[in-house]
């Protein structure tokens, strides 16, 4: 039987809140992520966008590709600007409007982490979305705290590829005790729509981390964007799960499991990854998955 992607056709054929004419590259995961997110959220949404690829993708003055209100904000202020917008909408009595901070990995893991931490500690009622292409792609593929170990970037060039691991942003966010932390991936679009629909009904700070492929940055074939992203989950490098008030649920049990080595195969950015790093990465992926499975089991008790 074919596992149809569980998104009702009526939803897919509704007029898109993201209109075409985007300035994104061919095969851009970020574009798809926004399209799917807004399918889940609907039009009563405000997007707060710091400096990131979407600053460009959305279009230039006086045009905007989105049919929801958008405010561009400073790089490091996504979360707190969203908090401000949220306060305003509450004052206006429009409590059903979702205020969504839509930031890249730079604006989340690095420069924006202070504001994010502050908002999370306050449990401000915002939806914070990090679409993660694993480097500062907008400024030309420089490494970020989200860049995985072994990856080439312009600031971790050949001969000095990144040795440090990717920050575990989910653990960081969970440490703040917020009601909802989830990972998602453009390879599993129905899961994204489900999570964004769900986010609407949760009060407090919600954090959704979407793995978002970047063909120029990952050195992949644009047509293979979704395939490669799916492989990330199949390799247990990016498991798809959600934590709601401390309860873990694994949303995607991959259709098959592959090795990390297989995952990095189609990606030019990992060409220099040493076997030693690969082994470490494989161990970590295995460990992470085992931990997750255990957490999910404990949660279901």
């Amino acid at each position, binding site marked *: 039987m074919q596992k149809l*992607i569980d998104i009702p056709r009526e939803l897919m054929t509704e007029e898109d809140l993201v209109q075409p004419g985007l300035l994104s590259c061919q095969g851009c995961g970020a574009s798809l992520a926004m399209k799917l997110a807004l399918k889940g959220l609907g039009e009563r949404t405000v997007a707060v966008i710091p400096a990131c690829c979407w600053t460009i993708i959305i279009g230039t003055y006086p045009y905007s590709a989105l049919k929801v209100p958008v405010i561009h904000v400073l790089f490091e202020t996504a979360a707190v600007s969203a908090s401000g917008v949220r306060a305003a909408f509450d004052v206006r009595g429009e409590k059903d409007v979702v205020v969504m901070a839509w930031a890249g990995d730079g604006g989340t893991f690095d420069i924006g982490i202070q504001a994010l931490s502050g908002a999370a500690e306050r449990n401000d009622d915002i939806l914070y979305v990090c679409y993660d292409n694993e480097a500062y792609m907008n400024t030309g593929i420089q490494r970020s705290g989200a860049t995985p170990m072994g990856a080439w970037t312009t600031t971790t060039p050949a001969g000095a590829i990144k040795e440090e691991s990717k920050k575990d942003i989910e653990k960081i966010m969970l440490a703040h005790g917020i009601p909802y932390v989830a990972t998602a991936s453009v390879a599993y679009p129905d899961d994204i729509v489900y999570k964004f629909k769900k986010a609407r009904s949760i009060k407090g700070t919600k954090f959704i981390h979407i793995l978002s492929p970047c063909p120029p940055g990952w050195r992949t074939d*644009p047509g293979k964007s979704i395939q490669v992203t799916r492989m990330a989950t199949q390799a247990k490098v990016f498991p798809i799960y959600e934590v709601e008030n401390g309860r873990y649920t694994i949303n995607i049990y991959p259709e098959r499991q592959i090795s990390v080595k297989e995952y990095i195969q189609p990606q030019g950015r990992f060409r220099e990854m040493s076997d030693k790093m690969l082994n470490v990465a494989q161990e970590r992926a295995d460990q992470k998955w085992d931990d997750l499975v255990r957490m999910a089991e404990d949660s279901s008790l």
Partner: protein
Amino acid sequence: MTVKKRSDLAKTYDFKSWRDFTPMNTSLGTMLHNLTGSWRFIKPVYEDKVPACQNACPAGNDIEGWVRLLQEGKYDKAYWYLKREQPFPAILGRICFKFCEAACNRAVLDDCIGINELERFVGDQVALSTPHPDLPEYNGKGLAVIGSGPAGMSAAYYARLLGFKITIFEALPVMGGVLRVGIPNYRLPRDVVASEFEGLKNMGIELRPETAVGKDITLDELRNEYDYIFLATGVHTSMKLKLEGEDQSHQIMSGLGMLKKVALGEEIDPGKKVAVIGGGNTAIDAARTAIRLGSDVTVIYRRSESEMPAHPEEVEEAREEGVDFRFLAAPEKIELNDDGTIRNLVCCEMELGPPDESGRRRPIKKEGMLFDVKTDSIVTAIGEIPLFDYLNEIVRTENRTVAINECLEVDAKADDKARIFAGGDIIDMPHTVAHAVASGKRAAIAMDCDRKNVDFADTLKKIVIGDGPAISFSKYMGWDPVNPVSYNNHVVVDSKKIVYDYFSKALKLQKKIQGPDVRITSFKPFTSTLTLEDAQQEAARCIHCGRCTECDNCLIFCPDMSVLFKGNGQFGYTFDYDYCKGCGICFTECPRNSITMIEEESPVEED
């Protein structure tokens, strides 16, 4: 239908003075004016392709099409749709070699689709005697089909749909050729064959059994009486062992002979022990027939099991039924008693040497390694050959086949008498029923082209399916496929592009087959047609390789909102080339490779 262009909604602003600006930095419109389609160098098109199963089928059976109709619950429609390319699903659904299943892409994930069982199911949905609902007027040309086997039946069926007036001549008192007298009842019941002929008769085809061409009527007479002749006399003569004594015992018989006797209801007693020589389907059929007649059977084959031409399933069932197999052995000498009974069959051990012209390793005698086989009868099934006496040298033959060109027209003196075509086992082609049926179709189309003075080679190019040589009758007739998306019958689905991640594993339904102990008690069939639920369940496993099923993957995954669902009762999707960047995600994520990426310069047909 043209989908309303979103680019028509684009509006641009051109500020000439600071006074034109908004009071603060805020947007006025969308980015629809940015026609990102200009970035492309390759673009996607929806192109349904030939699935692996259809490509492998010698008859070009559009399996995916009728499986789809089956899934939709349109059983009658599925039946008539299937018959467009293969007229006898009830027959092939029981005995086909199943080239399709061997090629089925689903096997990569779990198991192939049980296409054969599904074909049988479809074949059993409509009474076989039902004539085709859309019979055309006669076109004024007459066709004589010589031989009522599958090739002849197929030629008659398609020729009737092309308007020919047909008579099928059959030497035996029963119609069906190898289907009737060569394949045992337990594999293909007689009444199925009889019903098919009812159907042909109800289509206006004249049946003339007990009329042997060359005896009761000559080929020359037919050449005067008809405009076209189709030779389909098959191979019903067994090859000889070429051992001394072979013709001197009533206990030495051919496999074909044995099968025909049983098929015609004649008495036969092969004795307690039977040795069947050979490794093809005839040998197995004969062996399993002998088992049912109460004998102990050993099949002696000169190569090893993996080289046997017989279908592995048949071999397995035979084994279950108690047939013994002795591989790498061949008869060396027959020792007869004075009364003609067999005293001993001396065999020689064989070993495999280098490959021969068939590609299989040549068996070589291990000199001196002889052994005895005590047996009551010997059944020879080492190959079948045709009898060409009736041709009376009118038609050229070579290597025991009728020489033909690509139209299947024979090499005969050009004159103003009937044009002669040939097909089935008498031409140089694999000896399977599927191939025979395919040849009948081809000949009918060739005759029609000839009648209309249309170049067949040209036609062939248009109607060939995939890698060929199968051709599409639907394409010839201009009939639409089930799925009205742009269909290219020349492109075979790229199996490497099937995305198995979108399918859950589900094993093929186990065939319901009676146990061997029950089976050997009679010649009754021991399998049953699938139930409706089972058929639906099995059909649901079909990947629909190369054919769009409106799964929405392209619609969901396009990052540029450039896939639009047509809606309004129309099938499928359309690309908005104003914005499509040609990234290829839709192409990669289509689970069944029904999208093709073409270079930007190519014109796209408006559908």
